[in-house]
């Protein structure tokens, strides 16, 4: 699962493509959520209620 750490890891196409795609997706989700949370915290700090979206 993890390069360098997992015993099963190999630097072959299977791992690079599959795990690469996967880590890519996970990082988008992670970064996206982190962004949202931090921005929400900052917005709250600023007292901005972000407007009503519905």
């Amino acid at each position, binding site marked *: *699962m993890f390069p360098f750490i*997992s*015993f*099963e890891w190999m630097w072959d196409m*299977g*791992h690079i493509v*599959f*795990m690469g*795609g*996967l880590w890519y*997706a*996970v990082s*988008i*989700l992670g970064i*996206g*959520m982190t*962004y*949202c*949370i931090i*921005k*929400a*915290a900052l*917005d*709250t700090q600023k*007292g*901005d*209620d*972000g*407007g009503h*979206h*519905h």
Partner: protein
Amino acid sequence: MDSALIPEGVKRCPFPQFLTGLAVVGAVLAWGVFAMLLCWLKGLNQTNMNDSYGFALWIWADLAVIALGGGAFFSGFLKYIVGKDELKNIINFAVLIGFICYSSALLILAIDIGQPLRGWHIFWHANVHSMLTEVAFCLSCYFGVLTIEYIPLILENRQIDKIPFFHNLSHNMHEVMAVFAATGAFLSCFHQGSLGGVAGVLFGRPFAYREGLLVWPWTFFLFTWSAAAYGPCFTIFLTKLLEKITGKKLVKDNVIDLLAKISGWMICTYIIAKIIDTWYWASVTVHTRGQTLMDFYDDNLLYGLWILVAEIVVGGIFPALILLTKKGRSSESLLWTAVILACLGVCINRWVMVLQVMAVPVLPFEDWALYYPSWQEVATTILPVAYGVILVMISYRYLPIFPQERELNPVES
């Protein structure tokens, strides 16, 4: 009693009535939980699975709910990527259904494995060549996406929304939702596909085995396609059902019509592909291995040729034809028929791709293996249904799932 939590401008049933409903479904849930605990504590001897049926009811249920939950990713894809903005009126519900389906699937998988405490081996010791690994990774990631998509809905609850942080968080998440949806669609394509791949790569099982493209057998693409095609039907079906139960119109006809039409086209194209696949499989793939189509259909009650007809004609061609015509979509009864048939069709497909694979003998001197589930298996399969009903009940009551509800059902004050 709980009116402070109920979205503004909509009417909900009295709280005691709600509680009674919860209790009834909760009892079913408790039955399922009891069966689940039995399976965990005593082991899988509680099931009727056996060495010929390593995959059985549960895996079917998994595949079926994920196919049915495909409405979430596909409508997300349509709304955020293709830009069908009308779908925003049904996407919340689609996300909720998806969330229920995927969490159920994960729960069933956790019961289904013989050593739940070692479940994490699939991640940590992953074999990237295994379709199941792909399923596990994409499934859990996509479940994460669904959670991310579901969170803003929760945050929109009247009380939670009052907290500025959550209000802002919800707002920000909506802003970047397209990115999440795109990631979700990407992941979905792969896990839906890999679920198809689970059967398709089994070259020791001619009934399941399919040739394909690169590492992916044709079933990979067929599964993704069919989930995208049939998933929306399930969304429509549940929306319609919920409208029946609540006695309210929740989504405007044009939204349903659009989704139904897209679904119709998808099913139509899918079923053509499926027919080609079946024909190619029967006349080439299987033929070179010394078998013919009829070797895989027996005169036993369960796996006669009828099941192929039911899957392709009744559960495929019929609903496709209905959904493709304006008349079919606008007739309440025809639409009902179409979505129900479609849901059955995809469920039969998943059943066939799991259980019939196990049932068909491969060694010429072996016999058909038949199986029926134990009550523990049935209970644990109903468990997620009960859980889903509860989650829908709560979400519908307290969250603004249907943006058009207020407009369609003005409350006299």
